[in-house]
């Protein structure tokens, strides 16, 4: 599985992608510097948590996970090189697990390191904000990576469909429709952020354990579905 993970990670990490995605995540550092430099008195902590919620969990984590995870199999399907993995006597779950590991392993540092650094800078190195941010973004990336890994294998133009999912489901439906929030990775990640930061954020209805469990279960189930689809898909 290590060999599969290494190959897929190298395919995912093109120079253009890495620079673009680092720039997206790195925006949180700019926002954090703005918060730290502002004259907000005792609200810097809350401003930072709001920024993590409004940018890191809403934009950076899902977009970085989408670009990298959908490319894990999507790139191989598009250029016809999936055949070189598919045609080896390797259990399909190992291929899916290798791709999931590559997706999480590449997306986590690109999201979590700059965003957590931003939380540190914005909050004046408040350990609660740092831990809450690291935990929330990690869980969000795991959930999104599994989801978009499956999407990348199953459908063409996964980037567009993934962006539509982020905008419509995560950004609109989960905020406006009662019950939909329970199926939103972003809402659960926000719950983790709020609970660990011991603060209040809108639309964080789940319990802490549920908030940790649901995105991870979503990621694992999506990776299992990917393994199943690998068995049944037709390879060009």
């Amino acid at each position: 599985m290590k060999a599969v993970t290494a190959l897929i990670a190298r395919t995912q990490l093109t120079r253009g992608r890495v620079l673009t995605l680092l720039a997206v995540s790195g925006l949180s550092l700019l926002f954090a510097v703005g918060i730290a430099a502002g004259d907000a008195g005792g609200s810097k902590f809350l401003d930072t948590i709001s920024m993590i919620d409004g940018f890191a969990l809403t934009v950076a984590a899902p977009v970085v996970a989408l670009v990298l995870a959908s490319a894990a199999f999507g790139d191989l399907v598009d250029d016809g090189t999936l055949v070189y993995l598919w045609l080896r006597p390797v259990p399909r779950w190992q291929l899916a697990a290798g791709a999931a590991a590559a997706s999480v392993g590449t997306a986590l540092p690109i999201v979590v390191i700059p965003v957590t650094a931003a939380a540190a800078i914005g909050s004046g190195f408040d350990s609660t904000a740092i831990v809450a941010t690291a935990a929330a973004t990690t869980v969000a990336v795991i959930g999104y990576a599994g989801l978009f890994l499956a999407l990348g294998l199953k459908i063409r133009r996964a980037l567009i469909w993934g962006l539509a999912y982020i905008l419509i489901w995560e950004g609109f439906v989960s905020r406006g429709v009662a019950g939909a929030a329970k199926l939103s990775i972003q809402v659960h990640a926000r719950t983790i952020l709020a609970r660990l930061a011991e603060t209040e954020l809108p639309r964080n209805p789940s319990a802490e354990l549920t908030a940790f469990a649901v995105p991870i279960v979503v990621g694992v189930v999506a990776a299992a579905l990917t393994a199943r689809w690998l068995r049944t898909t037709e390879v060009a």
Partner: protein
Amino acid sequence: MSQTPGAVIQLDGVSKFFGGVVAVSDVSFTIGPGLTALLGPNGAGKSTVMRMLCGLAKPSRGTVRLLGRDPRGDPSVLRDIGLVPQQEAVPEVISGLSFVSLGARLSKVAQPDVAARRAIETVDLDPDDPRPLRAYSKGMRQRIKVAAALVHDPRVMVLDEPLEGLDPRQRRHMIDVFTSLAKDGRTVVVSSHVLDEVERFGSRVLVMAKGRLAAEGDFRLIRDLMDDRPHRLRIGSNDPRALAAGLVSVGAVVGVTIGAQSMVVDTVDVAAFRRSVTRVAKSAGVHLTEVVPLDDDLESVFRYLVGGR
């Protein structure tokens, strides 16, 4: 489906539809050890058949068996398959050695790096070439694909247009590699458009046209069975006109084109013609210099079968 004795690959009533398009229609054949060429014009369904052989695509109808197993339902059979796919793409970012070695690792080869080096040397490339595959020429990519296909020493090799992009020297070398694998008892299936090269693989062919199997077997025997098409021969002599007149008078030919030192004749029965021509020449006092069949080569058979003569 009962397994035909000696069959390594067996297709029985296999069809493949893509929406309303019939890519392959009711194809049945068996392939045993040795080298078999799969021929057909573009769009004939060769690549689809090869993908189904390897389990990459599922037949819409019919059954495919490789070594008695279903290549889609039984992943263990993948250990015995080496495929050179038609598409040129290879993982761009890794070196040739990493690419071939990855295949060896995933196929659980005991010493993957050693096997990878050996396979790369077999296709006349340098295993220590550090460049990523994106820097490889088309011919080098084609050869590294062959190395990846044979690194785990599979019993069945499926090669889809493996000579594409190779220069004549490389083609000769690869043909030697394929024939050597076949002589070792492996089953090698090769598709190619380069018919004069395919002819060197041997005489066993499967010809596909418009998604159907047009013919299978030794292409010379196939030609002999085409009794609805006259055989064409070039006859060299010192007096083509006299010889032509004699052959027409005994009914040995159905058509004659006379040149200065030779003529081209069409005959429906080559064996009877060969007997007649010496007798007629002798009685007419004509000296024969050559009798050369013009259309029992693979290309002629292929043209007849796919209807594009």
